[in-house]
């Protein structure tokens, strides 16, 4: 079952032609205009959404003394998500100086003002949310049952665009004040 020299040449030519055709196709596609200019990278969208949430949510520690304090944004998730959140590091909202922390499971979450759950491990999520319950820590996640588990804001997609739901019971028990404007845009779970 070995190639004869002639058939080999034929096959080689055929293979190379095919490869060149594939290359040509790929190169054409590469030079094509990027369609996604009007779209947002999902991880960046999550960071920007989070930035906006902070704008419309008041923490109980916020007082009128106008003293700037660190608000630790703790991110649980893959590197791409961390990279996207780095854009928020050092920014200021009202009296909050945003400080982005890469929260791996070895680091403590005691100083977090916000936790973004970019993971799918429900055991870890449930356990953390359980420990955080009632604490003034804004929890943002992206699982259909995130609010079921005591999470405060859950991101979901509809027709490729982000939507969010808010678990009022959880945010109220943590004394986080969510503005009416944010609630208007959300699906509210009482």
């Amino acid at each position, binding site marked *: 079952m070995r190639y004869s020299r002639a058939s080999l040449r034929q096959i080689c030519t055929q293979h190379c032609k095919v490869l060149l055709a594939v290359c040509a196709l790929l190169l054409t*596609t590469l030079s094509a205009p990027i369609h996604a200019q009007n779209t*947002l990278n999902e991880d960046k969208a999550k960071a920007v959404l989070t930035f906006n949430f902070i704008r419309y949510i008041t923490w109980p520690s916020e007082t009128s003394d106008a003293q700037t304090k660190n608000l630790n944004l703790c991110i649980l998730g893959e590197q791409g998500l961390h990279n996207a959140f780095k854009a928020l590091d050092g920014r200021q909202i009202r009296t909050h100086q945003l400080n982005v922390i890469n929260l791996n499971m070895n680091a403590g979450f005691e100083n977090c003002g916000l936790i973004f759950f970019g993971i799918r491990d429900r055991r870890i999520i449930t356990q953390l949310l359980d420990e955080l319950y009632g604490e003034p820590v804004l929890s943002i996640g992206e699982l259909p049952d995130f609010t079921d588990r005591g999470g405060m804001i859950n991101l979901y997609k509809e027709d490729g665009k982000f939507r969010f739901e808010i678990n009022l019971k959880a945010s109220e028990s943590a004394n986080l004040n969510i503005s009416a404007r944010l609630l208007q845009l959300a699906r509210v779970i009482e």
Partner: protein
Amino acid sequence: MNSQALAPHKMRHRRTIFLTSLLCLGTSLSSIALAQDDELLDLSLEALMDTPVVSLSKRSQSIATAPSAVYVITQEELRNSGATNIPDALRMVPGLTVARIDANKWAVSSRGFNGRFANKLLVMIDGRTVYNPAFSGVYWENNDVVLEDIERIEVIRGPGATIWGANAVNGVINIITYHTADTQGGVAVARVGNNESGFSGRYGAKLAEGTYGRFYAKAHENDEFKTLSGQDSGDDWDTQRLGFRIDSQRSKKSALMLQGEIHQGEFNQTLRTPSFIPPSYTLEVDDTAEAKSGHLLARWDYTQSPDSYWSLQGYYDYFDRDELFYEENRKTFDLDLTHNLRLNNNHQLVWGLGYRFLSDEIGNREIIQTDVSERDLHLYSAFIQDQITLQPERLFLTLGTKIEHNEYTDFEIQPSARLSWNIDESNYAWAAVSRAIRTPSRAERDYDVFASVNPPNALNPSPFILELIAAGSTTMDSEEMTAYELGYRSVLSQNMTLDAALFYNDYSNLRFFDFSSAPSVSFDPYFHLIQEAMFSNGVNGSTHGIELSTNWQVNPDLRFELAYSYQKTDIDWLSVTDITQNTDAPEHQLSLRSHQVLSSDLTLDLWLRYVDSIDLFATGYSTEIIKIDDYLNLDARIAWKPRSGVELSLVGQNLFDSQQLEYIQETLINPTEVERSVYLQLRMDF
């Protein structure tokens, strides 16, 4: 079974392929600026919620920090691949070899030793083993999971025996389905094609507070392929399955999962059975394998404290297969307890206990017979593994071992040591030494297989007709392997990652045929000799190789995934007659995939694969080593989403070749070529 030296022209042919591929990737390099972060932060919430988002490949942005050669196929990749079954999707994994034997049979293995009876790869679906202990391999056609419900497929090349136990020698595949909270609502998929037509549907809902469920059904019909001479190969098949899964969070600390399934299938096949009729001494027979299976699985997860959690899993599995040459009915009951415990900052412990009860009934058929038609086996196991922090967040050493007791080979110990090093945020290296074993199958212990009738030939030095019986032996012992592995992963740039693994596997006690027993004489149907070839251990050998994969997200609309593997196999067979398992792996394998967003509702996926030639041995088909030629093939998928929840896709598979021989089964099955296939699929989410 060493591969022959490459002819120079063939070498050139290969080099051209690789150079062209490299050139192709190289010239495609370009940098695309993304929108400035500052502008993004000024976006209003309303504007944000009105902007479509695109998800980029997770793999192109981060590296897994697991000290083994792991590759994960995500649901998105599974969908984009156009594969209609799991083995075809596995072709994208570096180091894995997938060959379709006929329309309903696959040979899938990791790091060599491929075959229908690929006995060194363990496969599990949601924690339930689907490795068949009688013929030691996986009936892939039986495990045709609803692809839309798969969250991910985790593939570990190399041993996983310390955790998963015997037979996880060259690899472990974990097929993991979605939590039911992630599959609410309905999905219906209908497919029509020249080779396969079918339907699958699922409906999921919230059943109560904290409790979700789904119910699914899947059925399809596959057409037959072609034989080498272009005749219909008589291997059309159909299967139907029904199943459910329920997940319930009982409390903050305790979660319950329950799943069950029933399945039946009819797999037609053209057998090539041994016969006493000259000149071929084989007979082509049309047959249908009828399979029925089902399972019920429950898992309870309990979080005792942040540092301690338990998992208890039990399942019952029923399997029945009836074909002309063999009949098996098997019941499996399995119970596993796992405990994760963080002792302190330096020790993360996992330990577990397992018990498996296997009960089978084997029907005596003309080809496969046994004196022990019923057997009950008890398997006990325990494992412990400690991840020791040598330097916080940087350097870890994982030590562990599995101890098993089985009734064939008594105690088996399978230890491993793995070193894990986070060099910096974007570089990771690991090294491992581990031992794994492959325990004897029921067939190797108890069966007599009527393997072939041989006129005087290479296998038969006598002047008479010789009947060969492959005979199971109670002295058959485990095959052993020590693996040495090195791995490195790197984030090369913000949009590109590299994963590399090197391995050297040292095998001993491999199975071979022992011909030392004296031949006997028979007059049925005419005078001939009967020679027993007894399954024995004693052959040694090694394999080594390298596996590379890289990912490149060129821009939000385009990404490439390249996987390449090189492998050499060196087994010390004494002669062709020794060979009882195929060991050769394609020396070079290449997979290049592209995923491209053409417009807001149109995507294009291309998948180019090169698989090198292999040498294999198929008793009953040829008494000599057969060379399966190398091949290059292309799959393409174009998907259109005319509106939300509706996707229409057109897929072409094996486009370069209308008929491609990928493998010849070790015994009994007529060589069959894989056909080009085209199908149209409609998916509705509601």
